[in-house]
């Protein structure tokens, strides 16, 4: 297959790292690596959810660049930001070439001429600022910040984190688009595709161990029985089969009735289906160590009508802690991971 060099060229031209190189040369590229290292450290120290008032990070472009001396807190380690940040104020961090760290809580503007900066403004809205220009950072739909992607070696840990950070408040762009209304009461028809795409993307970006962890959509166990997601590890014979089921109601825009409503029985059907998939897979691929995962995307609401615009808090939250019981025989299977319920909170007014 011949390479499409125009695609590569276009990709390079549109990337902020080449723009910085063109503007600032090799010192700019070196400063960018320093800046991104600091940005990742800040994101490790503070969860993105605590940065809703914004984050500005400046990295000195030359050794003479002076940090702004307007009563900052001085830190020796970025890890200390965890306790320093109040989670409410805008946060500004400036790092000198000698490693000096200055921190301000509250709105702050840097002089741009001697610094390369990064700004987190809101989920999916980040920029790199050079002395002359502002460059957009690419968007990862499942993650509010490009530089705050958590990494996992264990699939169950990844699924648990996915539930808390992506599903609960539908922060992933795929999941946000799965709802018919902003209140997150009723799905649009066939939300399973968006759920699958969201999960696949999350796993592709956060599951570690080489490129060998593949999250592939709609792998076939055989020609007629698809499983939603298959994760394989290239350096071992382990395979994870992930079956997705959603609970709640769906309706098309403008329709005056629900298209589908799924309750707890749907989750149990999914468990039976997954067990069947596993049996089939073990027969067809006996040399692979397959394990099944049932992911239940739970958007159930109590007291819901197709035209509900809002619900009482008690109804909206009714199923938040409503865990689902399954057939004990299934749960005892060594190849059957404990099902995971990924609960969607309704939006509050």
């Amino acid at each position, binding site marked *: 297959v011949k*390479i499409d*060099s125009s695609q*590569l060229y276009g990709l390079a031209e549109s*990337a902020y790292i080449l723009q910085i190189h063109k503007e600032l040369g090799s010192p700019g590229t070196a400063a960018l690596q320093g800046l991104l290292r600091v940005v990742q450290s800040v994101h490790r120290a503070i969860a993105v959810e605590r940065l809703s008032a914004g984050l500005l990070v400046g990295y000195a472009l030359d050794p003479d660049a002076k940090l702004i001396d307007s009563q900052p807190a001085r830190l020796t380690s970025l890890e200390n930001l965890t306790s320093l940040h109040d989670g409410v104020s805008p946060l500004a961090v400036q790092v000198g070439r000698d490693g000096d760290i200055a921190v301000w809580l509250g709105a702050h503007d840097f002089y741009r001429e001697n610094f390369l900066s990064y700004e987190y403004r809101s989920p999916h809205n980040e920029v790199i600022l050079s002395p002359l220009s502002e460059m957009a950072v690419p968007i990862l739909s499942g993650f509010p910040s490009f530089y705050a992607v958590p990494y996992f070696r264990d699939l169950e840990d990844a699924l648990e984190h996915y539930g808390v950070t992506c599903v609960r408040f539908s922060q992933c762009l795929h999941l946000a688009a799965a709802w018919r209304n902003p209140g997150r009461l009723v799905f649009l028809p066939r939300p399973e595709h968006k759920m699958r795409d969201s999960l696949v993307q999350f796993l592709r970006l956060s599951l570690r161990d080489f490129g060998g*962890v*593949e999250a592939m959509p709609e792998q076939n166990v055989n020609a007629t029985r698809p499983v939603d997601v298959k994760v394989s590890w290239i350096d071992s014979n382990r395979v994870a089969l992930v079956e997705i089921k959603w609970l709640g109601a769906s309706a098309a825009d403008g329709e005056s009735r629900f298209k589908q409503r799924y309750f707890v029985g749907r989750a149990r059907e999914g468990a039976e289906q997954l067990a069947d998939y596993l049996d089939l897979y073990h027969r067809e691929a006996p040399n692979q160590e397959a394990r099944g995962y049932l992911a239940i995307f739970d958007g159930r609401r109590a007291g819901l009508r197709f035209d509900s615009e809002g619900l009482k808090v008690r109804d909206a939250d009714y199923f938040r802690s409503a865990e689902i019981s399954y057939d004990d025989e299934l749960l005892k299977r060594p190849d059957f991971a404990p099902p995971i319920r990924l609960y969607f909170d309704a939006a509050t007014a």
Partner: protein
Amino acid sequence: LRRTSRLEAGTRRAVPSDVAECPEAVYDSLAVVEALTPTAGGATDSEITLFCYLSCLLAMFSNQPVAAWGYGFFATKSIAPFSESLSNAVTDALRSGLIIERAAGYVLTSRGEEEAAFLSSLERFARRRQYITAACNSTLAVPLPRVGSAVTAEPGLRQALALSSTRPLLGESGSQALHEHFDALSEAVPDHADLFLAAVTWISFLAAQIEARSVSADLEISDQP
């Protein structure tokens, strides 16, 4: 000084004797563990191999002969890339207490840090340091797992994985397709630019190709009745 000259003569044994069979593999594995720890909390076996493989590719992009890399890479039926030298280096670094395994992967011990700093100071490894740094620093601009999957889309590795057979990777000078990638990359990034720029550009391109292939596969599935 005495340590340096003994290693450069190929006889130094700062680590157990079998580790030093391939000093380049020892240096590379420690350097990758050190470089990935701030980003990922450590490095796994497959990440060590993967980032060393990417480093070797960057050396080839910089017109270095693959034969000078110091050790080779293979595709096996189940793993690609694989390097026995790296595998041995990691095993022995563990045994000799230079690295320990944590939940997030291998990290350097204080003795390992000393060893890595010492090896880094040697002229012998000066050139390859820039390739390893560029490969590992790519995770500053691209999520680590995406770097991993992108490298598997490199033409030689992609072909090897498709064939699922045991074979050496990169060969004498790499495949024709690989050199076409390098030619296009040379045009896309300015001369004398930091290798980090070339690494991130190429990885982003390979990742975009994977993305395009998976979208196309999804569309085919969606079209099915």
